[in-house]
C-alpha cells in the first residue's frame, strides 16, 4: 500500500519537475558548461585558425584586465547605491499607495508605468531628456533661477553614472512597490488595532509591526535587485556605451564587447565563469546576513 503510494508519488514528482528541469538543463546549464569548456580555449566567432587549448591563459589575463576590474568596480558601486535607494523608495511608495485614499489605484498604475515600458524605449527617451538642451537642464535652470550650469549628463564622467542610476531607479521602483504592497496587505489588521489601543504611534507601528512583518518580502526584494543590478547592460549599451572614460563601463558590457564585437569567445567565457563565481559569493553572503537577522 505505502510502496504503491510511493510509486505514485515518485511518478508525480517526475511529472512536476521534469519538464522544467529538462529545459533548464538544455538551455542554461548545458550552455554554461560549454562556456566553461570554451574558457580554456582561444575560440573566436569567425576565424580560419583552429581553436586551440590555451590552459589558464584567459583567466590569467582576466585578472590583469583593467577594463574588467573597472567594470566590476562600477557594478559594485551601482548595486551599493541603487539597491538601498530603490528599495526604500519602493517601500515608501507602497506605504503611500496602501493608504485608504480615493483614486489610489490610478496612482498605483502611474507608478508602475515605467516598469511596463521596455528598457530600450526608456533609454532612448531619457537620452533625449539628458541632452544639454534637454528638458532636465532647462528644468534645473528654471528652479535655480538660472544659476544651474548646463551639464551634458551622459558625456560627463562624474554625471553619467548617477544619471543612469536615477533612470534605473525610476524604471525599477514600480515593480518592487507592488511586491511590497502585496506584503503590506498580508499583515493582519489586528496587529495594528491592538497596538493603537496600547497607544503606539505611527512610527512605532512602522518599526515594530510593519518592518518585521515585511522581512521576507524585503529579503526577496534585496536579493533580486542586487542580482539585477549586477547584470546592468541594456541602458548602458544604448545611452553611454560604457563611456565617458569608462565611468559607466560594466562587466556585462565588457563581456559583450569581448565576446561579440571582438569575437573572443574563449576570453568572454572565462569572464562568464569568474563573474558567476563572484555573484554567487555575494548572494551567499547576503543570504547568510539576512538569515542571521531572522534568527535573532
Amino acid at each position, binding site marked *: 500500500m505505502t510502496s504503491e503510494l510511493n510509486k505514485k508519488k515518485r511518478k508525480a514528482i517526475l511529472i512536476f519537475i521534469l519538464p522544467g528541469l529538462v529545459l533548464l538543463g538544455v538551455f542554461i546549464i548545458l550552455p554554461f558548461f560549454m562556456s566553461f569548456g570554451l574558457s580554456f580555449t582561444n575560440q573566436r566567432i569567425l576565424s580560419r585558425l583552429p581553436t586551440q587549448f590555451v590552459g589558464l591563459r584567459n583567466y590569467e589575463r582576466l585578472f590583469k584586465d583593467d577594463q574588467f576590474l573597472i567594470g566590476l568596480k562600477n557594478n559594485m558601486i551601482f548595486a551599493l547605491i541603487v539597491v538601498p535607494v530603490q528599495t526604500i523608495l519602493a517601500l515608501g511608495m507602497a506605504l503611500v499607495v496602501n493608504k485608504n485614499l480615493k483614486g489610489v489605484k490610478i496612482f498605483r498604475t502611474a507608478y508602475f508605468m515605467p516598469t511596463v515600458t521596455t528598457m*530600450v524605449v526608456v533609454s532612448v527617451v531619457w537620452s533625449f531628456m539628458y541632452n544639454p538642451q534637454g528638458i532636465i537642464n532647462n528644468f534645473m535652470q528654471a528652479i535655480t533661477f538660472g544659476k544651474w550650469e548646463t551639464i551634458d549628463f551622459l558625456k560627463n564622467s562624474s554625471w553619467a553614472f548617477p544619471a543612469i542610476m536615477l533612470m534605473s531607479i525610476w524604471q525599477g521602483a514600480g515593480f518592487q512597490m507592488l511586491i511590497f504592497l502585496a506584503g503590506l496587505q498580508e499583515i493582519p489588521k489586528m496587529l495594528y488595532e491592538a497596538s493603537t489601543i496600547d497607544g503606539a504611534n505611527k512610527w512605532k507601528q512602522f518599526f515594530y509591526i510593519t518592518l518585521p512583518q515585511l522581512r521576507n518580502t524585503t529579503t526577496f526584494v534585496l536579493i533580486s535587485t542586487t542580482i539585477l543590478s549586477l547584470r546592468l547592460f541594456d541602458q548602458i549599451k544604448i545611452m553611454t556605451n560604457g563611456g565617458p572614460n569608462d565611468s559607466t563601463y560594466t562587466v556585462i558590457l565588457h*563581456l559583450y564587447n569581448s565576446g561579440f564585437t571582438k569575437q573572443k569567445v574563449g576570453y568572454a567565457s572565462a569572464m562568464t565563469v569568474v563573474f558567476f563565481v563572484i555573484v554567487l559569493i555575494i548572494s551567499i553572503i547576503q543570504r547568510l546576513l539576512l538569515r542571521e537577522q531572522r534568527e535573532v
Partner: protein
Amino acid sequence: MSKKRSLKRSKIIDKTVGYILLTILALFFLFPLIYMVTTSLNPDESDIVSKMGSIEAFIPTDVSLKNYFGDSSAEDADLTENKGVTGRMNFGRFMFNSIFIVSCTVVAGLIVNSMLAFGLARFSFKGRALLVSLIVALMIIPFEAIAIPLLWLVNIFNWLDSYHVQIIPFIANPFYIFLFYQFFIQFPKALEEAAIIDGASWFKIYWKVALPLSKPILSSVAILHFLTQWGFFLWPLMVTRGEEYRPLPVAMQQFFGQYPRDWGDIMAFASMMTIPVLILFIILQGQFVNSVKSSGIK
C-alpha cells in the same frame, strides 16, 4: 468635542499630505512617458528639436498622427520622413510576432515554472535541497554569458529563423521558479493532506487548489516574464533573419542607422510598443494585491 474636531482636522491634513505626495511621485514617474507621447504627436521634426528643452514639448501646437501612420496628403508623401512608422516598415507584422512569441513564452512559462516550483515545495525527496540551491545559483547567470554557446546549440537543432527558437529556450526560468517556490512553500501542509484523503491526485491539487490560490504570484510572474521577453533584443538579433520572425526590439534598430534621426517616428514606435504591455498590466493589476486578501492563506 474639540478633540473630535482636531482629530478630523488631522485626518484632513493627513489626506492632503497623502495626495500631494502621490501627485509628486506620479509626476516623477509619468513625465518622461508623457514626453514620449507628446513628442510622437508632433509632426514637425525641427519643431521637436527646437522645443525639446522647454515645457512646450508637452503641448504640441500641431497634433497629428503623421509619425504613426504617415501623411498621404503631404507633398512628398513618398519621402521616408513622411511615411510614418507603419509606412516605413511592416509594423503590424513585427507587433504580431512580438505578441505571439512573448505570449507563448509566458503561458508555457507559467505552467512549467509553477509545476517545477510546486514539485520542489510540496514534495520531500532526496536531492530536493540541492535542486533548490542549484536553481538559485542559476538565477545569477546572465543571458549575455551563454548566448554564444546557445546559438551554437540551436543551430545544431536547426532552429534558426523561427518562432520556437525565440520561445522554447526562455520558458523555464530560475528566477520565476524561485518566486513560485517562495510562494508555494508558505501553504500549510493541511491543504494537500485534506485533498489526499479525499483521493485527489497531485495534479488535481496543483490545478484545483494551488493555482487558484496563487493568482497574485501568477500575475506578478506573468507581467515580469512578459516585460523581460518584450524588450529582448540580443537573442532575436542573433537568430532571426528576415521580417517573418522579427520582433519589435530588433525592428527598432532600423531607426538607429545613419542619418537622419527621426525623433518623431522613434517616439511613435516607442509609444506603440508600450501599449500591449500596458493593456496586460491593467488587466492583471487587480490580481497583484487584492486577491491576496481573499486567498485565505493568511
